[in-house]
């Protein structure tokens, strides 16, 4: 890891998400006319600082995974920007860089590599403006670890090939160091060197998840989206994997976006936690702040559901009524108002803004809209 670039970007967030939207069109059965959209991610904005972990929580179907994948443009982005800093832009050619410039900057930035690199260092590069080729070149810097360690490994490739294929393709290490590098990555992820020639079906779930992690880390990434990496594993293995991720983060200064529905895991690994509900972010704060002082009623309900491993403690659970509304037809106003105990008239008509309630603590709820409530 080049600590120099890392140091420069410390003050600015490594990832900036601005108004990210991902809609999946619903097509009528015969004429294939779009009749509506499933708003899986609906106007999400947040920043992540380099070397930190953002935990994203929310119940099933709230759009966490879609958001993670959309951030990597594994799904085409419907609207919004995902800006990255500190990517290996020097791999790109000048035309590719020029194409990635936002419209307003097109005329102001000189078409030289130095000027372009400096501009993107300052403002971040929008992943949505990159051409496919350029994006493929930058892929190694932004990696993803999948939820299901079974289906995310090609059953017909040996482990060494699964981990090393992209390394070779992107020439991340020189050829002569390749074998050694793969072995070292495998060791770092708790795999044995002789596993190289084995096939995925010969491994247990935990080992497979480690293979997935090794595959992601072998690319020397800067940002890793961990898409529920431990939810398919049993608790003892979960701990192993989480600790492995934490160790690797310490070692390599990685930035994680840790998607999970397991609040205790998120609490363990995250620096900041964001809560999502029905495609939108409802609250985001530092870990301690969020767990001690949750603001949004949904966050409160979520936190009250954390089981306490002590039978004598009486749980003060906030039970939510009803189901998650359909993301194809979200409720008007605040999306949570159908299930909110503190709902009032305004919530039904007006969508709350995602605002900074106190420094570093963002929430989207009319209850905390001081000026207008008074």
């Amino acid at each position, binding site marked *: 890891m080049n600590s120099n670039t890392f140091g420069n970007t410390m003050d600015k967030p490594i990832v900036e998400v601005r108004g990210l939207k991902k809609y999946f069109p619903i097509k009528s059965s015969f004429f294939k006319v779009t009749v509506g959209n499933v708003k899986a991610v609906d106007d999400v904005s947040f920043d992540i600082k380099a070397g930190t972990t953002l935990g994203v929580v929310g119940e099933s179907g709230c759009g966490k995974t879609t958001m993670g994948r959309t951030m990597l443009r594994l799904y085409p982005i419907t609207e919004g920007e995902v800006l990255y800093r500190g990517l290996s832009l020097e791999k790109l050619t000048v035309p590719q860089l020029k194409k990635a410039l936002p419209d307003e900057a097109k005329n102001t930035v000189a078409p030289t590599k130095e000027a372009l690199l400096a501009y993107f260092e300052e403002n971040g590069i929008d992943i949505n403006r990159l051409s496919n080729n350029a994006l493929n070149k930058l892929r190694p810097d932004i990696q993803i670890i999948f939820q299901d360690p079974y289906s995310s490994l090609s059953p017909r490739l040996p482990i060494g090939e699964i981990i090393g*294929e992209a390394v070779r393709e992107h020439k991340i290490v020189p050829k002569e160091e390749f074998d050694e590098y793969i072995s070292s990555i495998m060791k770092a992820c708790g795999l044995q060197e002789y596993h190289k020639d084995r096939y995925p079906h010969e491994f247990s779930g935990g080992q497979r998840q480690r293979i997935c992690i090794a595959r992601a880390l072998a690319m020397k990434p800067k940002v890793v989206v961990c898409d529920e990496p431990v939810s398919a594993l049993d608790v003892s293995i979960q701990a192993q994997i989480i600790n492995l991720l934490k160790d690797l983060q310490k070692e390599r200064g990685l930035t994680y976006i840790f998607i999970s529905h397991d609040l205790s895991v998120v609490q363990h690994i995250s620096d900041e936690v964001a809560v999502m509900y029905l495609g939108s972010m409802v609250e985001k704060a530092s870990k301690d702040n969020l767990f001690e002082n949750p603001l949004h009623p949904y966050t409160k309900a979520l936190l009250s559901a954390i089981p306490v491993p002590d039978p004598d403690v009486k749980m003060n659970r906030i039970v939510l009524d009803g189901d998650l509304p359909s993301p194809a037809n979200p409720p008007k106003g605040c999306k949570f108002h159908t299930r909110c105990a503190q709902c009032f008239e305004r919530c039904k008509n007006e969508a709350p803004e995602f605002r900074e309630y106190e420094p570093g603590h963002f929430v989207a709820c009319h209850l905390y809209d001081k000026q207008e409530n008074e």
Partner: protein
Amino acid sequence: MSNNKLDENVKANESSNKETKMTLDDAARVKVLSPARLVFKRFIRNKLAIFGTCVLVVLFLFCFVGPLFYPYGQTDIFYGWREQNDDYAYAQIRSEYVNYWNPDIDQDTKKSLSFVERNVNSTILKMLASENEEEQNSYEIVSEDGIYYNLVKLSDDAYALKDSTYVVVADFFGNAIKGVATFRDGFEDLGEEFNAAATAAIKTGSFEFNGKKYDIVKDKNGTKQDYDIYCDTAAEGETKYYFVSTIVTPTFYKTDDFTKYNKDSAFKYTAYAATFTGKTEFTYDNVTFGVKLEDGTPIISRNGEDFAFLAPFTASSSDTATALNIEFQLALEKAVLEMAGNAAAVGTEVSFNALAPKLEEGKPVLDENGNVVLQDTEFVVKREQNDYTVWCISSIYKILIYEAPNSEHILGTDANGMDVLARIMFGGRISLMVGFIVVFIEMIIGVIMGGIAGYFGGWVDNIIMRLVDVFYCIPSMPILIITGALFDELNLDYRERLVWMMAILGFLGWAGVARMVRGQILSLREQEFMVAAEASGLSTSRRIFRHLVPNVMPQLIVQATMGLGSVIITESTLSFLGLGVKHPLATWGNMMNNITQKVEYLTAYAYIWVPIGCLICLAVIAFNFVGDGLRDAFDPKMKR
């Protein structure tokens, strides 16, 4: 797992990873098979698949290794001595009487007798049909000028024309009152009394005078009162024949100058006249010939040697270059005349023995002195009306076509005299090779098209799948037959033809593969490992061919194995119809073509098609068994 294997495993792990301490539940201790070995393990449990594999291995060894140890090539043509029924000679009984003129007769006389000559054959028929013995032996013919001639029978086979004894003795000019007879040369003038008798009888037409009977016949060309007076006079001196009419013809013994005599009709007249008037010798051209009868056949000799025999039959050799020897002709004559006398003999066969030249390759064998070697040969003669065909069993050096299996040719030879077993081996090479190459082409096109359709989806998928539908609609057999005919028209070299045929077969067959691959890839591309490949920034072609295609491989292998059988069948069908692989290249299909000329060939030459049919069946069944076995083995739901 045996202890040995366990130990080896542990050792292997220790050697590769010495610092690792093995624990009891270490994953390295558990023997996990790679997918390929797992498939293999399942495959060898399937008895039919093992049978199919064994059959295929044997077939491949037979076709690709067998020819190395077999002495014959696929285009070797075999020759050998074989006995066969061969037409040797043709014989004919003459039924027309031919006239041979007396050389003393001048041309004018010949001309005036042309009418008579034309009537000889019908007159002979009348004589044969007559019940009157006198008429059977002698018959009167009147010439156009009203002159009487006699056709006399010399023997059963010969007749001769001579002057009639009933001749004009005088020309008579007169009427009922008075007439004058002018006697011709050589007749005595009988005077007035004769004139009176003739005048008196002018109306009745006949009268007697001096004990002789005379007829008065009106002269055709003369005036009203012109008459001829005829009288039956006895012949005097040696009878003069105008010609001899006979059905016999001389068959000459082999002498140097027989052709001269054969062409000479004067000689023939002399010989016939002498023979049939019962003389024992005659002189022609200062040479004295003797005549004798032997078994009723007149034989003419010269200087004490047999020169020719006379018989109403002619014989000719089937090979115009060789002459028939006299011994054979005599024997044949006997057999033929025997049959000729028997009307029921039409269509029957008679065999006889005669000395005849020994033949090899249709040519007589000569001894060291240059003489023809004779051997006693059995001949068969068959009568068809007046034609007789003679054949014998002769030894001929020829191409050995349709040889039955024997020690040299284990499965015999085919219609071209080529060894069937050798051609089956080489044909198997072509058939199997065509199968593999065609399936390979199908797979390449199918995987590329199906892969693109499945991976990109959308309109690309739509276009390719509609194309696949179109290819499914194409009736491939008519297309192949038409292209086969087109190749015939273009006179393509048989090698080019083979290449084109494989290309077309492959081109017509990819649709099924493409559809299968597309279906598989549609489901595979939604798998998370494909998203992972995309997230790793791998190129599209790498994603398709490294991640998707290997996962379709099991189904591909199964499809290919199954396809091999059907391609072999298609190729065989085409070649059988003569539109696929062409002679001289052998394939199992075009070898079958050998026995299609006649229905009887099917039973007669079973040794050609039965082995080929069995091989085609075996190959197709074996490929299907192996395909089934592979499909089951690749099925992960099958028990381990």
